[in-house]
């Protein structure tokens, strides 16, 4: 009774190893155990043979048919993508430069206004408040121009991505 149970346990254990045994993926000692079991077990031998046949079939599956011109199309798409990225980088650089310029411009205007505001007001025959108003308008126009340019570049990028 115990011997039968032991044999059945051993059989189940071997059966669970058949797939790996069929592709020689077991440790040598376990592989030998499986092979020894196969000599005395017809059902396992059939299953082992079927699994080995399946593995052989998978090895000789014909490769899928490649779409005509796949390599050329891929190469062209990669080149186009690289060119688009290069252009995006250039646009980003331009945008960065414009932003930096706007800030520098703003800081220079503020410095001029503080240091030479009175002299300029006298030269232009305007009051301090009018001059300050003029600087503020100039600064707002510069900021608006930068924001508009940023928006335009962003729209162009989005359109290119959609294309």
């Amino acid at each position, binding site marked *: 009774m115990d011997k039968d149970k032991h*044999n*059945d346990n051993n*059989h*189940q254990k071997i*059966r*669970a190893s058949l*797939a*790996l045994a*069929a*592709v020689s*993926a077991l440790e040598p000692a376990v592989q030998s155990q499986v092979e020894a079991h196969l000599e005395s*077990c017809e*059902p*396992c031998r*059939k*299953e082992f043979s*079927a*699994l080995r*046949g*399946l*593995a*052989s*079939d*998978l*090895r*000789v*599956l*014909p*490769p*899928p048919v*490649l*779409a005509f011109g*796949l*390599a*050329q*199309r*891929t*190469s062209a*798409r*990669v*080149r186009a*993508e*690289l060119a688009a990225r290069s252009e995006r980088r250039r646009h980003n650089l331009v945008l960065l430069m414009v932003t930096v310029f706007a800030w520098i411009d703003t800081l220079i205007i503020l410095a001029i206004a503080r240091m030479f505001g009175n002299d300029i007001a006298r030269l232009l025959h305007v009051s301090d408040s009018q001059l300050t108003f003029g600087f503020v308008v100039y600064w707002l126009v510069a900021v608006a121009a930068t924001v508009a340019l940023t928006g335009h570049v962003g729209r162009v990028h989005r359109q290119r991505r959609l294309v």
Partner: protein
Amino acid sequence: MIAPFFTAVQEAPLMAENALIRLRRGDLEALTELIEEHQTRLYRFLLRLVREPATAEDLFQQTWIKVMEKIRNYDPNRDFTPWLLTVARNLALDHLRRYRPESLDEPLSSGDSMAELLPTTGEDQGAALLAGERSELLVHALHQLPVLYREVLTLRFEEDLKLEEIAVLLSIPLSTVKSRLRRGLESMRKLLAPDLQVGSHG
């Protein structure tokens, strides 16, 4: 244990090495050479993962775009093919996660047997295996498996990678590769010929 895998580049064809070096320098002519050299393996691998030719082709192209992005990070002392397949796999899995809500280790889509679809097997079974119809059924059965099993089966049998190489490529332990290989084979066996299954011992 894995050392032979990483030294495989020494056995790679000289042309491929040159193309890789040129590509790293930004030579786009080398890209076409590499695509042509690897297109069959890469497309087949992607097709096995995503199962749809149009999607596989799109991912094929995305893979090469990604290769161009990452080529400067590629270690030329490593074999190019596993690196390429890793890039492709990541893109394919991202695609599957995005467009297929079910888990990547989903159970078989159905318990249906494909036995009735198989050509009649007789004495010339060996010859019939070579027939296109049989191959189509094998591919169909392969495509029914969860992607985690499919990729191990195709890498082992179609791409002829060693189990250790597959473990490195998939970043999983060798024991997991073996487990997926076993389950994949057993699932295919059940799908293809349940009537040939053997009952319990005795």
